[in-house]
């Protein structure tokens, strides 16, 4: 082989290289080792720094919010404005709690069916439409939530003459939830081993029956997880609802009535001049965070439990 004749005769150059390397002092080596340790120590510090805000935040939430949430009046009474005579008469947040439930319910009804179906379609189709929708859903998932509020205002509140209402807020939240549900549903359906689908087809079942009866049930866990996460997000969002729900001070289920919401009441009262309201706000925040955490953790647990069952 011709390239074998290129092998250099080793003796001199080889030793020079070896000498060069051997001459790397132990001190230089030690210095590099020390630098390595320092950099990793800095990385560990960064990890701690990441954990700090969450810990501090949780501490404040429980410290300031716990006394507030332990009164039943907090959950059952409508809000009141404190007066100079009754500076601590803040009432409760029953309207906001109900409002959040109502908004989430209506939004879910709008978003879940469409979202799951689109997600399934994206998982099962090769078409240009599917590819385009995929890009759209990923882009919309990261879109600023205030824009959903603008959309809902223009379309529902103004053009359809519905006015400030629960349905407007739900619409905004549905627009928010849809991309999340689409993406997670697609991932869930694609996560089903294709051998399952092939087995069904091999038995002679029609493709759409295989999808509905074999693949979808297997993807349910992932789909439900995605729905829970989407709901968790919708519950906590202020910006989409801020512009369109009207901040209603009554308890109402009706879609056309203005409602309040937990994040909205936090936003409205955070800068209040009344210390009692500023304290109450921590209680609302605590409720919100606990709610959202429970949902996130349940989604995680649900997802991993089913993984093990497989």
């Amino acid at each position: 082989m011709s390239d074998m004749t290129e092998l250099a005769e080793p003796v001199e150059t080889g030793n020079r290289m070896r000498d060069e390397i051997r001459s790397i002092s132990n001190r230089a080596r030690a210095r590099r080792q020390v630098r390595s340790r320092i950099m990793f120590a800095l990385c560990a510090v960064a990890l701690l720094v990441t954990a700090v805000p969450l810990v501090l935040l949780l501490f404040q939430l429980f410290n300031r919010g716990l006394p507030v949430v332990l009164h039943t009046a907090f959950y059952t009474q409508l809000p009141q404005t404190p007066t100079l005579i009754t500076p601590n008469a803040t009432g409760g947040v029953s309207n906001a709690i109900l409002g959040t439930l109502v908004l989430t319910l209506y939004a879910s009804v709008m978003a879940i069916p469409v979202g799951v179906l689109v997600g399934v379609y994206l998982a099962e189709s090769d078409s240009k439409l599917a590819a385009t929708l995929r890009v759209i859903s990923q882009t919309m998932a990261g879109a600023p939530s205030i824009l959903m509020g603008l959309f809902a205002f223009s379309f529902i509140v103004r053009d359809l003459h519905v006015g400030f209402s629960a349905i407007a807020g739900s619409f905004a939240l549905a627009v928010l939830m849809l991309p999340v549900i689409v993406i997670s549903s697609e991932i869930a359906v694609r996560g089903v081993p294709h051998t399952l689908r092939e087995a069904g087809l091999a038995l002679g079942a029609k493709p759409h029956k295989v999808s509905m009866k074999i693949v979808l049930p297997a993807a349910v866990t992932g789909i439900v997880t995605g729905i829970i996460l989407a709901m968790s997000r919708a519950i906590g969002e202020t910006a989409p609802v801020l512009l369109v729900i009207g901040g209603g001070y009554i308890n109402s289920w009706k879609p056309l009535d203005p409602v309040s919401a937990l994040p909205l009441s936090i936003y409205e009262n955070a800068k209040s001049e009344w210390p009692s309201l500023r304290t109450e706000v921590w209680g609302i925040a605590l409720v919100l965070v606990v709610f959202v955490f429970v949902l996130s953790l349940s989604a995680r647990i649900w997802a991993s439990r089913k993984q093990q069952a497989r």
Partner: protein
Amino acid sequence: MAHVETKVAAPTKSPERGAAAMQLKGVAVSFHGRVAVRDCTFDVTKNRVTSLIGPSGSGKTTLLRALNRLHDLTPGAKVAGQILLEGTDIYRGDITVTELRTRVGMVFQRPNPFPTMSIYENAVSGLRFNGVKKKSILDEAAETSLKSAALWDSVQSRLKVAASNLSGGEQQRLCIARALAMDPEVLLMDEPTSALDPIATLKIEELMTELKKRVTVIIVTHNMQQAARISDDCAFLLMGEDRAGELIEFDTTEKIFNNPIDPRTLDYTLGRFG
């Protein structure tokens, strides 16, 4: 499996043992208490190719990776026994792990050049890691090592090109050059040709025969014929009943393949299991 008798030509010089490059004494490796390989005692002679052979699972790779302390990366891994490099205990002696790895190089099963580096940068990466900065030295090392790996001719005009542009066999030779640039005393090779086509395999086997003039080569291979072709000494490992590998026999290749002591060795070389 067909019975293929592998005959090895009688060596041209007498198998007098020269100086030992590495010595293994009672080496055992365990992971979280479970023994993976044990009872390894043999000397690796300088400027010879020593192969570790045996069926899969017999601990050959595990043993090899102990020789450059790669198991330090694995939590729960423990290496017992003694491994000496030119008389120095590599685990407990007066040698840092980074220095050890400059003297004992490694080539892996799948070619793994650094994808973001050019051919040149790959070749000198070891030197750079160890603080060598002078361009003249790096240039010289690149040329020497690439020539030693029989790659210089085909790449000298495109040294700045990304390493991923090379074929599989060329990438592996680049990895060999990368290890050689450090001018190590020992070169560990973990099934270096198993991911390559036959022609690339042949080129690298020829390379090894030339390389042993300058480095001591220890190669793990599951290909008996390869071991018979290129190695001077052979260590045969087998998985025992407790699923731990152990050294069955160590001798010159000629003896292992033509006239082994242990019947299990004979069974293996005759292809009775594998």
